């Protein structure tokens, strides 16, 4: 069986989660490799969430928030914008590929964009292969 990456999506409630819902109501198909959890604002995304995900077997983490300027909480996404690159820097230093963590802006009307991003990310991670962390820790949800 070919490698099927597991990707965690952390989506903000107001724009991105609604955008993902729109992809659903518009029946826009994308790979099932993404699993989404919801936060109120992308600013709630604690770097430890990402680490936790990687340790728990995720091959990639996609964080989505409102477009800059659109934040429901005025400027939460600007904080995310600063925080995630820093995190990525640390992760790269730890040997985790840059592409495994991705930050995107998706509005409530961008169902197609969400699907496209998921497709693209799945392909990239598939090409990258399984995350070293999950391999080393030997976690696999399929074998419990």
């Amino acid at each position, binding site marked *: 069986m070919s490698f099927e990456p597991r990707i965690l999506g952390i989506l903000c409630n107001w724009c991105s989660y609604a955008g993902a819902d729109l992809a659903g109501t518009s029946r826009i198909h994308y790979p*099932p490799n993404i699993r*989404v959890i919801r*936060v109120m604002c992308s*600013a*709630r995304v604690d770097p430890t969430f990402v680490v936790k995900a990687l340790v728990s077997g995720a091959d990639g983490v996609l964080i989505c928030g409102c477009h800059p300027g659109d934040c429901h*909480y005025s400027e939460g996404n600007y904080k995310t914008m600063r925080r995630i690159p820093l995190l990525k820097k640390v992760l790269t230093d730890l040997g985790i590929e840059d592409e495994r963590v991705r930050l995107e802006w998706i509005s409530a009307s961008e169902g197609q964009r969400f699907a496209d991003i998921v497709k693209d990310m799945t392909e990239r991670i598939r090409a990258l292969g399984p995350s070293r962390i999950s391999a080393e820790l030997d976690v696999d949800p399929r074998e*419990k």
Partner: protein
Amino acid sequence: MESRECKIGVYICNCGTNIAKVVDCEAVREYISELPQVAIARTYKYMCSNPGQELIIQDIKEQGLDRVVVAACSPRMHERTFRAALQTAGLNPYMFEMANIREQCSWVHDDPQAATEKAKALTQAAVFRVAYHEALEQMMVDMCPNTLVIGAGIAGLTAALELADAGQKVYLLDKQDHLGGNLARVDLTAPYLDSARDLLTERITRVKTSDNIELLLNSRLQELKGYVGNFSATLVSVDSDDTEENKAQKIEVGNVIVCTGYKEFPAERVTHFGYGKLPNVITSFDFEKMLRAGRIECKDGEIPNYVAIIHCVGSRSPEYHGYCSRVCCMTALKYVHEIKSAIPSCYVSDLYIDMHAFGKGHEDFYRRTSEVKTMFLMFGKGDHPIIRSAGPKDDCQMLIEVNEQLSGEVIEIPADLVILMVGMEAREDATETARLVNISQDKDGWFIESHPKLDPVATTTDGIYIAGTCVAPKDIPDTVAQARAAAGRILAKIAKGKIAVDAIYAEINEDSCSGCRICNELCPYSAIEFDDEKKRSHVLSVMCKACGACVAACPSGAIKGRHFTDQQMFAQIEGVLR
């Protein structure tokens, strides 16, 4: 992860065939039912239907479930429905979690096996998460029905009257010794040339005779403490300084409306207009004075033959203010009519950049102005006309040189009197006001609304409202609408009597807090206060909007985002990836 003692009921919706067509709901049920804390797992055709909800209620009552998971459509659609069902069954509504296996699973995937696996993971995540849910209660906070209105211009008067007419107590504060603000300096209003005086007199008479309005003239706000519903304001006389405690007056209010208005752009800043040097170059407010006195004349008492009006003085300019002041175009057109009425033989030229005649009746008014043969001249943005004194041979006092855009010629305009349409700018004390009531200003000094479109009169500080020209330049109808809107917001709150504080907010554990104050600056709602004595921060739950920015940022992990705790999130992550 440690397991917690709980009895979770899981309900998987088929949504007709919407979910069941792709996701093997039965397989999901089987998988989930084996999880340790799951007491019961069922599938049903339509969970959102009444029988579906009844099923949950019955199970809670009969099986003693203490937590519920529904795997169905998007929580944005039915989370509220199921929470209500829990409440009906006597369970705290927050002991609930939804898994979105329709919009984000069955509708977007076509491989049944992969979709089923994903549905399992999503449902499992919800189960893991819900195990850590806590019963949350909505808090109700008392609210003082009194309102403080700062600024007694047309906005303040309107807001105060709206509240007072509804029977609420209002404190109307103004630094000046009279009511009316900037509008009191205006004679007629555009575009219908109605009397500004009548408009103000009506409001002022009603304000003065209202039993519910307490006027505080010659006074200013010295301090505002507290939070929405429970503010304590200290007011002092304008001429007292901060040390004179004895003159201070303390009032209790639930809400504050800031309508401090604008001040006119100081024309002397634009040197090439010669304002202050050339005697017959005046500002629009100087001209209003002439109009009220019935004396449109030059300094030497001569009746002007040529009047020139220059738009956008201080506005739409890279050097001064980039924004448009919104009312000057119409005011200028108003002046044209007024000049033509008083001095029919006078030639009026009007120098503009773009004619902003956008409101009701405005375009028609502009056309009327053309009918009386106004010479409209267009100059480019950033390309100012230059005024100089005329020579002895000229039949006029001044000459204005301008690169006219519609003809493409550099021309000279004769003028005996030049009116500068000075724009609006934020008051000097706006920064001080913003600091006192804890709201922010944009780069031009205007107060920032909570949301520029859908919440134009609220601010990010609960209980503080803004209206009129302190938010941005606007004309009278728009100001009046905003003032009433702000009053309406407050009336809605008063009608409820209490302020409901959402059960989801952030909390700081004082023991873990290091007092680093990182969170203080981060909060867009200024909901985090720092206690100087304890050297600890704490969240004013009333003001918190639960975005969680502080939770993620706290280096000591001292902040807990209720309903989005680290534990809950970790459990969910683990569940979704397992």
